[in-house]
């Protein structure tokens, strides 16, 4: 597809029928979590959409986000979306290497100044820039340079969105998120460790379709996917309401599919689309497979205590501190009481000697 061609014209030239296009649009609308009534608008917008240039930067990451994306069920709809964008730079996926790769990035930035979409996965180490470099350029410099002329930035994965695992206590590299550094560009956080692949493509599709940023929540995530908590949409919710909880992973309750709250499920405080979109071609999601949500799409999910500690249990430290407090309290109480007593005694004694 040529860059100046609209998506509609491109599909038409590929012999895709209008029916095929409408099917593509309803699948895309579903992908973007839009109500089916929006299909008409999606069709109108997609027809005239132009192919945006995308630069994808990978910083301190494990490539899990890219793996998630490329291992997505590669359905036509998603690959079409990839056809519909021009992925001009991506470490893992591009053919070019070395200077050629960097040249491609620079060329794309220059040609599409102000219009390209910057996608980032991984966090940025600011403790010492040398912790992570690409072609001798520190992540920090590359991010600043590439963000300067971007139309918008998509931070893919919890690392890019909130610092993620590199940011976890004690954060040896001084890892920070994209939004900690870039303040003057619209940033869409597509969090998750990794994010659900169709959520990544859904957000790309939104940008492609409407050329705009979707509505975001207070943590910068698209509301269409992160608007409701796992718990809000969990099919085990009726068990939660009835107070039927699995107490271990192999008890009768677990077999009956009861709620996993007591086993540490973080669903109530985690916002993501797993409960509806699910994973692996919509097969299942952790709770569907009997394991609680670990809260991977939330900031600092790694530092919120054990994945198996119930939310209600709190992180109140150790019993020793409480026992210490008990001992100290008792000691002070008894001490003051005894002191008061002996003072009184002394006073009484003094009184007695006075009167004699």
């Amino acid at each position: 597809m040529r860059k100046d061609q609209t998506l509609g014209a491109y599909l038409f030239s590929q012999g895709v029928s209008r029916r095929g296009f409408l099917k593509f649009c309803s699948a895309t609308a579903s992908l973007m979590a839009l109500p089916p009534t929006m299909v008409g608008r999606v069709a109108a917008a997609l027809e005239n959409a132009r192919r945006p240039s995308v630069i994808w930067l990978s910083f301190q990451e494990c490539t899990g986000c890219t793996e998630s994306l490329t291992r997505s069920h590669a359905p036509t709809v998603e690959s079409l979306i990839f056809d519909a964008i021009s992925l001009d730079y991506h470490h893992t996926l591009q053919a070019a290497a070395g200077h050629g790769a960097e040249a491609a990035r620079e060329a794309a930035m220059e040609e599409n100044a102000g219009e390209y979409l910057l996608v980032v996965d991984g966090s940025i180490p600011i403790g010492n820039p040398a912790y992570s470099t690409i072609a001798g350029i520190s992540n920090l410099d590359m991010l600043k340079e590439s963000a300067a002329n971007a139309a918008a930035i998509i931070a893919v994965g919890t690392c890019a969105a909130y610092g993620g695992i590199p940011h976890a206590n004690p954060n040896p590299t001084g890892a920070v998120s994209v939004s900690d550094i870039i303040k003057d560009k619209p940033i869409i956080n597509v969090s998750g460790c990794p994010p659900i692949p169709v959520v990544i493509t859904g957000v790309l599709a939104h940008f492609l379709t409407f050329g705009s940023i979707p509505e975001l929540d207070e943590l910068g995530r698209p509301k269409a996917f992160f608007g409701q908590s796992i718990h809000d949409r969990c099919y085990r919710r009726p068990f939660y309401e009835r107070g039927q909880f699995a107490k271990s992973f192999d008890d009768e309750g677990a077999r009956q599919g009861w709620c996993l709250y007591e086993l540490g499920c973080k669903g109530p405080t985690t916002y993501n689309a797993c409960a509806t979109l699910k994973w692996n071609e919509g097969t299942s999601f952790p709770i569907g497979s009997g394991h609680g949500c670990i809260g991977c799409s939330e900031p600092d999910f790694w530092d919120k205590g054990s994945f198996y500690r119930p939310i209600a249990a709190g992180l109140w430290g150790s019993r020793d501190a409480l026992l210490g407090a008990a001992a100290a309290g008792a000691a002070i109480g008894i001490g003051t009481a005894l002191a008061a007593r002996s003072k009184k005694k002394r006073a009484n004694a003094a009184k007695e000697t006075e009167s004699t």
Partner: protein
Amino acid sequence: MTLLDFARGPALQWSMIILVAGVLWRLGGTILINAKKDLSKARKEHAVADGLKTIATRSLPAHQFEKNIRFQHFSGYAWHIALFVSVLFFAPHILFFESVLGFGWPSLPNSIILITAAIALAILFALLIRRATHPVQRIISNADDYISILVVIAPLITGILAFAHLGARYETLLAVHLLSVEALFVWFPFGKLMHTALTFPSRYQAGSSYGRKGVRA
């Protein structure tokens, strides 16, 4: 650190330390300080039975005043029972107790807890209004009474809101609920909420000392 992390972490830890230390400080002090010898001749050597009896008899309204205090008395009972059921038998609460004590117990379904919590809240409101309007009660109430009611009513309201996901995001509601409970923990040893720990010992004390003097408690 998010508000919820703060509420679940340091705030919880410190409020619990203050609660435990404060309660033991006051208990230790109260038990030991009042050790003044009664010099009069005892009418009865062992007044233990009188002490225990008083714990029981004061659990019912005194005959003389029964007409006047019946409402107060029974609404007090209803309120305490509703509160205890809500606090002790809500599954997430039990998980909290379990994390502190090391053991748990069976829970009641959420629908029942919601009802008991609503009852507790309604009664406490009624009692608060009565306290503020009833001429006698108004005079004998001080700041301690109102603060104590406030730190109990706040967890009830925020707990119901968090349960129903009403008004804000769940993690915010949960954080506010925890913080309100932590406020209660901190206030507990220093105000009238301490009656939780002192009611029975002081009844016993009164009963046995009257008994010693041969007076009906």
